[in-house]
């Protein structure tokens, strides 16, 4: 799901790095679903 989201963000911005995508998702308070946020945190901090 995260990858599919990244494709949508790429289409929207034209170009965005994977890291920036994750960082932006972490900063979006109240919009990102709990399960997605946990996966993003794991991807961002630990991978």
């Amino acid at each position, binding site marked *: 799901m995260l990858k599919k989201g990244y494709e949508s963000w790429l289409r*929207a*911005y*034209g170009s965005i790095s994977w890291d920036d995508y994750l960082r932006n*998702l972490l900063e979006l308070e109240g919009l990102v679903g*709990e399960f*997605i946020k946990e996966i993003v945190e794991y991807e961002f901090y630990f991978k």
Partner: protein
Amino acid sequence: MSSIETPYILGIAEKPQAARRLAYALDAKNKPSVKKIKNISVFVCNRDNKKIVIAPAVGHLFTLSPIGKTWNYPVLDYEWVPSYTVNKNARTKNFTDVFKSLAKGAKDVIIMTDFDREGEVIGYLILKYLIGRTDAERMKFSTLTVRDITQAYDQRDKSLDLGYLNSGLIRHYVDWLYGINYSRALSLALKKVSGHFKTISIGRVQGPTLNSVVDLENKIKMFLPIPFWTIESEAILDGKKYKAFYEKPKIEQQKEAIKIINDCSGLLGKITNISDETSYQYPFPPFDLGSLQREAYRYFKFSPSKTLQFAENLYLKALISYPRTDSQKLPMTLGHKTILSKLSAQNDYTTFANEILANKKFKPREGKRTDAAHPAIHPTGNIPDNTLSASERKIYDLIVKRYLSVFGKRAEILKGTIDIQVNSHKFEVRGSKIIDEGWIRYYKPYFSLSEQILPNVQLNSDVKFSYIDSKENFTSPPKRFNESSLLKRMETEKIGTKATRAGIIKTLFDRGYIAGKEITPTPLGESVVDVLQNQYPILVKSEMTRNLEEIMDDVENKKKTLDKTVFDIKSELKDLLILFHEKEEEIGRSLSTNLRLSQKSELVVLGKCQKCKKGELRIIKSRKTGKRFISCSAYFDKEVKCTATYPIPNTGTIKPTGKVCEHDGLPIIEWKKGKRVYKMCISPTCPSKKEGD
């Protein structure tokens, strides 16, 4: 026990307040005598040289009970028993005894309960089990006004409508059969595996309703926002600033948004079109129960069950018509001229009621939905006394104003647009002017229109913009249900009835399956649905209960007989329960695991409270908001009532560390989010946090 001279006609009323109103209306002098039997007021009236004794029930006096004492399933045999024999809290014994004592002297019986399925069942069971008869005359009324009651008496049916009665009975049988069997099945499945007993109750309507809440919560948890852009702009017309709308409401690519802004960089446009159009806003249809509940939630934030309770009180005070209706119709036979004349005597409504009366147009605007038993909810015109609570007054005012508004003329609004071209891009400035408020005047403050008057401008003239900018937005997760929207969802899914939906939602709250004004499932609710979705989905899908509703409608329409239908339903249920039994261990294991996990997050003790020195600090979850926080156990101690509370994150898991903070002596907790672990003092103002610890 009864000292009333026989013979008499016995009237069965649904509630004490209704009995009083019926008696006062039916007595020729409007002065019935009141006798006390077992401390219950029974009314004796005289009408047309006949004595009518009206005794009240207090809702249902009977309940279904299984035959046989073993606590197992399937349970397919049942009987009607007096409520007080099963439920010690049911204060129905005296009411039951009153009817028993009056039975002997009753020459004839008239059922005077509310005219709906439940009223029919209430009256019939009293008739059958306390009076020893199977048929009676039936009064049908939609309000408790003198006019309606006397009319209902004069036009009473000579016997009960079996189709209507049977549709009420079958609903009880089906709800009871499914409720008791599946609650036992789930509870026993859990006990078999875990050795512990816990009542897991679920009903045929509760299951799909809870499932809707859980499904939505899962969608919210899995939501990933996607960016998009909007063009924000302000045009200057005649020296004033007006919001202008870009031709495309949503831009999906940033480069396109940038291009638009660059193209419009000169901030100068030209007016290419000016148009006006008259549009009309027609009155909303009269209230049925669902729309009343939604409107009361929207404006007053009253829950659907509270709104129903207030409306029922207003009905019992003969101020409004019967509220449990699906109808949006107000037939002319209701006598609108009379109702409006009566309303004109009430200060709050004098002006508008007189206006409508002066227009002499008494045909109300109606909606499409009908209900065979009752019209749409409307006021009776009777003047409220000062026994109304503040909340009842609010609902009363809402109903009266809605009623007045359906006689009002359509509102007329002039909608204007000014099109502005900037290079190849089109912007629109929108305005509106109220020409005639029409019905809206009668319905304020519950609805209003705003105006934006556009200036006079010339075609082809130049327009400057104060700004044209692009704004980044993100798609939002779906909104959680509130009680009103969950009710609407049940209506759309066609599960439950107008009378039962609010009660089902309340039951889900009471059983701890859902919480909060923005409704979220609790860990218990999520556990139960998770297990059922995977192992036994029929209990959480709407199809089964929808099919049952259709079968029950067939019984009402006499397309199917009661006995055959009950037999078929029992057979189908038996097969479903056999299927359940085959998977009992698997279901039990899943339930046990899920419940253990959900209970773990519900009560965690962290340490001693430093404020009162008596209680323990624990993590608890608010039943109202669904959010977790730390509070002191001594809050519930009447002598101490410690109010120490501390906020905590609502995601991740929290464990005590057994250590205390060196700054303030409060417990240090461990907060785990994914693979990250943080240790921190529970106090948000602890100095350790400022130090970056």
